[in-house]
């Protein structure tokens, strides 16, 4: 291995060996998961496109939310421990508190935040489609109330119902027995 590269690797190992924070691994996993999990979900051919999209967005957003939460809660709890613990126990206690912070984030803070944040985001994401649908209904109701003469046939295919004119007698339809 190249010497410069080996020195870098040695430094990384030395840092990790002296202080391996619980936040490192969870943040690394969340970052790679945020890219890979939605990609794999979208590649799944067995699921419906709608469900696939919903799941992929949910998965991606979960990991995007997870990264800062892991970092914030981990570092925050370590700082809190440093404030309250006696000096001789600070180093040990701060690291343990960091793990507790990360666990709290994994168990309820991240899922809770996701439930709160994903709903409005999903609504925003599907808002345009909803708007388009409402517009469609508006155009159709205008046509049926007779306010507009033009009808965009691309919007829908009208149901062909039998007209009353079909059953009305008229002299325009040729000779009728005993007719006028």
């Amino acid at each position: 291995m190249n010497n410069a590269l080996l020195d870098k690797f040695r430094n990384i190992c030395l840092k990790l060996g002296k202080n391996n924070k619980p936040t490192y691994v969870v943040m690394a996993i969340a970052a790679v998961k945020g890219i890979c999990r939605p990609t794999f979900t979208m590649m799944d051919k067995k699921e419906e496109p709608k469900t696939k999209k919903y799941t992929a967005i949910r998965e991606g957003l979960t990991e995007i939310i997870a990264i800062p939460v892991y970092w914030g809660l981990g570092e925050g709890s370590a700082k809190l421990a440093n404030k309250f613990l006696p000096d001789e126990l600070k180093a040990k206690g701060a690291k343990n508190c960091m793990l507790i912070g990360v666990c709290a984030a994994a168990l309820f803070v991240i899922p809770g935040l996701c439930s709160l944040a994903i709903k409005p985001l999903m609504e925003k994401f599907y808002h345009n489609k909803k708007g388009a649908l409402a517009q469609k209904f508006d155009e159709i109701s205008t046509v049926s109330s007779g306010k507009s003469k033009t009808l965009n046939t691309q919007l829908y295919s009208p149901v062909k119902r039998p007209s009353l004119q079909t059953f009305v007698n008229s002299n325009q339809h040729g000779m009728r027995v005993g007719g006028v």
Partner: protein
Amino acid sequence: MMNGITRILTSNSLNNITSNTNSQVIMETTLKAIGRPGFILIDNDIDDNTKKYAAAKEFLYQATCLLVYIALVVPVFKKGTFKIAQKLFKPEEIGKFSNSKQYAHYLKLCDTTLNNRQKTLGKEIKGVYKTDKNGNKVHKLVEDDYDPLIVKELNKENPDKFPILKGAVEFGNIVGSVFGLAIFAPQVSHLFIHPALNALGFEKHKNAPKVDETQQKLDKNV
């Protein structure tokens, strides 16, 4: 009350979990397997079937990840990086250990007091024998497993923990965790999740023919 909390926060067992990447990941994934499906289930804005389906899928995904991680990633990457570190670094930097288990045991011994450490080193290993200078069969001691230089280190008040070796092992664990949980486990879970969801009956409603709501509304308006 405060003393109790301090004792828990600074306990050795919690510290052992904190200093080991694998235990951290196992703990975190287990909590995720409980927390995430739970929060999906209490979400009132999603319809019941989708909620159950998403929660079951999330639980199965996390459970598969955990199993794959414990069964494959932990042993492969731990042993692999230990061997790579032995090849890359000098013995003075990383000590002379025969395997990663021995190094883990060494680290545990380092955390004890010198007196307790010396007692442990002098203990006999049950069922394991060696031949002494006179050719007699005698019980092997714990210290016989270690290299003489390592035994010398363990007899010091503050032994060297060989942080480069520890860091290399942790680096391997982090890389293994990322690879295992973010790339490998999703592939395995995709193979396993659909049959499992089918067996649990969650995929039935999905395959049922759906009436298009938009079409229904359009028909009503027309």
